[in-house]
């Protein structure tokens, strides 16, 4: 109970900090989003029309009152779930935009993350089981070296190879021009084709952390007394590897799984930008570069909440999986 309260308190404080940071960022910025919008519209080859800047400024509306009242109003709005209207997609509300992008990210990241975790953990466990053999070195060294390749570069190479040279898969986007998002087979198969390359990129890099983490953990647990005792008990190798090695070694990975979800949500910025995937990450980058403050604020908050939830989930999951902390969590 105490543990739970402590965590809940921490999450609340973190949320508050994120909201405050959110509030401050646009207010610490030089320049005027209206001007940025008009400048983008005009391009670099045309003069900015001050009249249009004024019109856009009116359109966006400006907060008023002292900084403190603005802050209080902002907190209130966030609590009520009002995130305002996007600057880039005026007059569409920010929540509408996030609702659209959310599923792309959730499905792409969800599937690849789970797959990466499964593949990585299995490979890592296999390597640990076969530690100090050729299979082990191939897996460990191989994944270490693939891990050094810059992710975005890998993604570019995939595009170059599979989309541009071979033309097997579409290079970018979430779906083609011919299919309308909806519950249709055409759309799903199209969306699937579009997700192949980004998913592939994520799946190449994704398992590496799990492989190495799992292997090192399991090598360690297999060296513990209980694993030795299991050998002394004459248990089959498989059973030792699973119940006395993997079962325990996977625990930190499980926490890591949820924790990493946060990093991955952030990391989608890269993937989705390169593949122009219509998810939260690209929207985040766009909102930052377009100075779409309401959208950026909401996304930032949203991602932070996602990370916090993931952490919370990880804590709970760890409690369920590890009897050593179960009591404390339940208490």
């Amino acid at each position, binding site marked *: 109970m105490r543990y739970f309260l402590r965590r809940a308190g*921490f999450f609340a*404080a*973190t949320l508050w*900090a*994120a909201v405050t*940071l959110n509030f401050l*960022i646009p207010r*610490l*910025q*030089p320049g005027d989003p209206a001007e940025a919008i008009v400048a983008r519209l005009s391009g670099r080859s045309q003069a900015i029309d001050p009249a249009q800047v004024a019109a856009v400024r009116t359109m966006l509306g400006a907060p008023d009152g002292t900084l403190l009242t603005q802050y209080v109003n902002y907190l209130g709005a966030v609590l009520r779930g009002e995130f305002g209207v996007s600057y880039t997609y005026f007059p569409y509300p920010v929540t509408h935009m996030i609702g659209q992008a959310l599923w792309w990210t959730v499905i792409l990241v969800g599937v690849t993350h789970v797959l990466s975790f499964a593949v990585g953990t299995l490979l890592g466990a296999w390597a640990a089981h076969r*530690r*100090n053999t050729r299979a082990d070195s191939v897996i460990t060294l191989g994944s*270490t*070296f693939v*891990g*050094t*390749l*810059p*992710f*975005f*570069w*890998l993604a*570019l*190479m995939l*595009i*170059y190879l599979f989309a*541009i040279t071979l033309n097997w898969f579409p290079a970018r986007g979430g779906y083609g021009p011919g299919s309308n998002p909806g519950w249709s087979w055409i759309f799903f198969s199209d969306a699937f084709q579009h997700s192949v390359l980004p998913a592939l990129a994520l799946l190449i890099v994704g398992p590496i952390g799990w492989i190495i983490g799992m292997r*090192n953990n399991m*090598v*360690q647990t297999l*060296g513990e007394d209980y694993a030795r005792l299991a050998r002394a008990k004459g248990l089959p190798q498989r059973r030792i590897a699973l119940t006395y090695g993997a079962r325990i070694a996977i625990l930190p990975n499980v926490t890591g799984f949820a924790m990493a979800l*946060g*990093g991955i*949500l*952030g*990391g989608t*910025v*890269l993937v989705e*930008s390169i593949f122009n995937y219509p998810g939260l990450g690209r929207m*985040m*980058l766009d909102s*930052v*570069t377009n100075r779409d403050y309401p959208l*950026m604020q909401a*996304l*930032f908050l949203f*991602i*932070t909440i996602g*990370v*916090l939830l993931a*952490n919370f989930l990880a804590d709970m999951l760890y409690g369920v999986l590890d009897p050593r902390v179960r009591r404390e969590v339940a208490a």
Partner: protein
Amino acid sequence: MTAELAATEARRATRLPGWLVILWRNRKCRIGLVMLAGFVLVGLLAPGLAPYEPRDDSFDGSLPPGAGHWLGTTARGEDVLSQLIYGARISLVVGLAAGALSTVIALVVGLTSGYLGGLVDEILSFFTNLALVVPVLPLMITLAAYSPVKGLWLIVAVISVTGWAYGARIKRAQIISLRTRDYVTAAKFAGDSTARIIMKEIMPNMTSLVVVGFMGACLGAIGGEAGLAFLGLGDPASVSWGAMLNQANNGGAMLTGQWAWLVAPGLAFAGLMIALTLVNFGVDALSNPHLRED
């Protein structure tokens, strides 16, 4: 602990930094150190090695690799090889500077929080945990995009400010375990001051942890710089590998078949990362005798 022991012994034997001697003994690590030294040399001697100025755009654009330009030219007519060579500087400078800076932040926060405990610890731990859960990349992007000044030091600052938390947490845990050691209590009974205890009793037992943290921070920083630069949020005035990839991508390298422009920065980056990873193997072994044995 064994690491510090061995390090202390090695230092006494050779008068070189002990951890360096241990690193050198590890074969993988030795290869990594040599590679790293290569990159450092390339970075240092860039003006001598590079055939041209990295921003000299007086050549024909989009030339394929050939005699005059071994890796061809960019769409704007810059020599790719020269950019590649100068790019090593950026990666190394950012890696070292941001790695060092975030290690220092982590060390200061970790030391203070772990040794003092109590309210200070509660507050610092809160900020550490906060920094751990705040999504790093979006924060980095926001900071980098909205900073009124651009430049390499901004990137260094952004990476350090967003990347210190993990190290601080680890160092705090280590301090907490070290500060209750009997020899620390003994130092208190010997009348040593807190500062002296931290510097003379605790710090020497943390060298390997600090080195490991620093290496990790360097790797992260180099990756972070490349990522930011690739997203177009890097220092517009400097030619880094990430920025080269960004320009290659935006400049239609795929389109004009300028594969060298696209491939070379990625491979160079991977090479540097491999060098650092190999060094890290040794560093890991330094801190974890478990790994040293198998």
